[in-house]
């Protein structure tokens, strides 16, 4: 539990490489050339300006969900519900934005930002409440909340709020006032096609805030304390239940903020099943990032690159689909969890104390 400095940085890297090896085996099994595949991955994600831009774009929601899961972990809670939380938040934001049609951006955007956080927060807070109040298993409960969220938004987007005259499962578009600018609005050299938007900046800010809250304030001190030991916290006069609910609420809120980059910054509408599992990839991001905001950013960038790269798999290989990312992240989570194994491996190398 007490890692050497070097290990903290080395272990994730090692486990990522190990995971890519496993992935390579799988790729080979389905009859493709691993090297070629990984080359495609990275050629399109980090070896071109455009690619990097897209990598950042795909990393944005992952930063949010990664933060969400990490925050939960810091309080000893496992938030698998990011996926559901972000759907609810996205829907909430869309509806608020639409209903605020005609107001000035100065009103709409702040309101939407807050709504995204609150909506996700509530969805995450419920399992937190159940945990605190009844000791209901937060993992199972967040999963159930996912299921419920999917049904709910599916109903809303199929039924009452479905955009007229289209087969696509989408709501109406949000008013211009509710849309946040793309990056190229700030930095002209960036191509207009790039969907990277202010959501990314907000994500970075969120990381900064999370860091400050967790490590610099009394609230963070308490949340982390609860995460380490309920009994000690109770002894120290910390309200464990309150902190649990708080943590889950904030975690949900972080997940909810995905709506900012996806709805307000990119699609401008609620598109059914717009998030291809970023809520779950968030778990891998958090664990790989050792539940630290900086780590989360780095891990999110990695997975952003993977997602970006994976989009080219279907085009270039007839035996591979983008689901490979899911496999990779699954393996990564597994390996991060079994860091004892890798510590053993690293044991052979002498590490600076």
């Amino acid at each position, binding site marked *: *539990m*007490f890692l050497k400095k070097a290990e903290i940085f080395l272990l994730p890297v090692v486990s990522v490489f190990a995971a890519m090896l496993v992935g390579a085996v799988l790729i080979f099994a389905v009859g493709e050339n691993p090297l070629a595949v990984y080359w495609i991955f990275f050629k399109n994600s980090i070896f071109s300006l455009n690619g990097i831009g897209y990598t950042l774009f795909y990393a944005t929601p992952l930063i949010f969900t990664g933060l969400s899961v990490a925050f939960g972990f810091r309080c000893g809670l496992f938030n698998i519900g990011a996926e559901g939380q972000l759907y609810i938040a996205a829907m909430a934001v869309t509806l608020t934005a639409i209903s605020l049609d005609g107001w000035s951006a100065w009103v709409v955007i702040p309101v939407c930002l807050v709504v995204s956080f609150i909506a996700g927060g509530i969805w995450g807070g419920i399992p937190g409440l159940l945990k605190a109040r009844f000791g209901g298993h937060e993992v199972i409960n967040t999963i159930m909340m996912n299921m419920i969220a999917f049904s709910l938004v599916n109903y809303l987007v199929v039924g009452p709020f479905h955009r007229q005259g289209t087969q696509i499962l989408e709501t109406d578009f949000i008013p211009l006032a509710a849309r946040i600018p793309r990056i190229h609005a700030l930095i002209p050299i960036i191509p207009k096609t790039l969907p990277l938007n202010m959501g990314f900046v907000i994500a970075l800010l969120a990381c900064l805030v999370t860091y400050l809250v967790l490590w*610099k*304030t*009394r*609230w963070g*001190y*308490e949340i*982390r*304390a609860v995460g*380490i*030991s309920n*009994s*000690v916290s*109770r*002894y*120290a*006069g*910390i*309200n464990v239940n309150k902190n649990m609910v708080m943590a889950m609420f904030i975690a949900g809120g972080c997940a909810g903020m995905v709506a900012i980059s996806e709805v307000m910054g990119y699609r401008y509408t609620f598109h059914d099943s717009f998030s291809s599992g970023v809520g779950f990839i968030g778990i891998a991001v958090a664990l790989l990032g050792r539940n630290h905001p900086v780590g989360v950013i780095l891990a999110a960038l990695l997975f952003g690159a993977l997602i970006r790269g994976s989009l080219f798999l279907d085009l270039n290989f007839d035996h591979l689909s983008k689901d490979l990312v899911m496999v990779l992240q699954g393996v990564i989570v597994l390996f991060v969890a079994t860091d004892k194994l890798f510590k053993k491996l690293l044991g052979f190398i002498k590490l600076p104390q």
Partner: protein
Amino acid sequence: MLAVRLKQITKRFAQTLANDAVDINVRQETIHAIIGENGAGKSTIMEILYGFYQADAGEIELFGEKKKIINPQDAIRNGIGMVHQHFMLIPPMTVTENIILGLEPVSRSGVLHLAQAEEKIRKLSDEYGLQIDPRIEVENLSVGLQQRVEILKALYRDARILILDEPTAVLTPPEVGEFFQILRRLKAQGKTIIIITHKLEEVLEISDDVTVMRNGRKVGELPTSEATANILANMMVGREVLFELDKQPVVPGETVLRVENLCVTVGNKPRLKNVSFDLKEGEILGIAGVEGNGQTELVEVLTGLRRLDTGTVWYQGEDISNLSARKIREHQIAHIPADRKAHGFLSSYSNAENQILGFHYRAPFCRKNGFLNFASIRSYAEELVKKFDIRPPLTDIATGTLSGGNQQKVIVSREFSQHPRLLIIAQPTRGIDIGAIEFIHQQILDLRSEKVAVLLVSAELEEIRSLSDRTLVMFEGEVVGEITAEAFDMETVGMLMTGHIETRSTREPDLKSGPGADS
């Protein structure tokens, strides 16, 4: 003929040398005591004999022949049985299930033959007069009986050599009596018994030979007939035992804490029955009693960790019953928990962070805006680390990496440094080295002379005797006796602890105490 012969056993953990070339010779059909302070390595060497650890050097002879014992199964096969200090029992399972675990009598297809096992167990239990019902779940047995189950476990595996690690630590004096009877019976039946303890009087009473150990070495081995408490004590500690701390007389001031008819029920078991007492400033009130007789609940109630059912807790004339733990702290009531790992500190937090735990939310450690004031935290921590000489003297090292004694010091430093008026201390010196013990005892006395009221809960009668001005004895949730420091004698307390109320009660009539005492 020697039952056990340990030659030059050496065992090293990480840095510490647990056993250094230790020889032990145990004669057949005798009771052999191994005594020593905590960390003298007496448990380690027995774990080696039982195959739990492997010796780095040295060899083991059983009944004259050299043996290699690589794991407990080996030990069992060689007729060695061990009763650990922390019982290796599975509470929700029945006595039978617990005993047969590992060599179950089974039919061809692996189906249990419980009846058959129960029969055998009942026979054994009668044979040695253990009076154990094989059908009952272990969790419903008293500690004393659980210990007998452990012994049965060994006998069931027909052990010829029985190792008992601190067997009397958990027993009340009368239980100890019965227990010794059992030991003698076992000896008479031809068993060889090795008993690890640090209680001299017991050694003198029960054993035939004594081996004394001190920090990893054997410092002597002699027949009990030649031993006296003093000789053994000196060998154990290596110097005159100074249990007498310099304890200036303090005139108690006005009452700080007054507890009236406290009742607490956990689940459906009453744990505290009409507990009443009061505590004056500058006074140390000891709470004696076998563990699990309500002390834990009492402390929890007083520190706001558990709600009381009826009764009131007056603190300086204010009713503080059922206040939250934080509110209680704000009344300058400090609390040193019995189980430091489970309650006392956060293992992966730094010393500094742990030293503000519970006070982290208020000045000077926290600013108005909710941000922590690290400058002041660090300086505060450095000061404490120096004052309580915590080693290593670092403020940013994770407390979990420190030794038990230093962990305890971190807790003590935190609790003692926020100007407490009332100090609630539970098992302050459990499992820590002598140096730390004496240091902490001194700290407690210093606070006492600063007119702080101290409530001291301890299972170590010796500790209570040497520190407290008054002692309450608890039995099954009741205060069954109250004894002044002058009148304190082990005998009386022992009887009280087990519910045998003395006729000549040593309590001053005017003082409150539970009705149980009057029955």
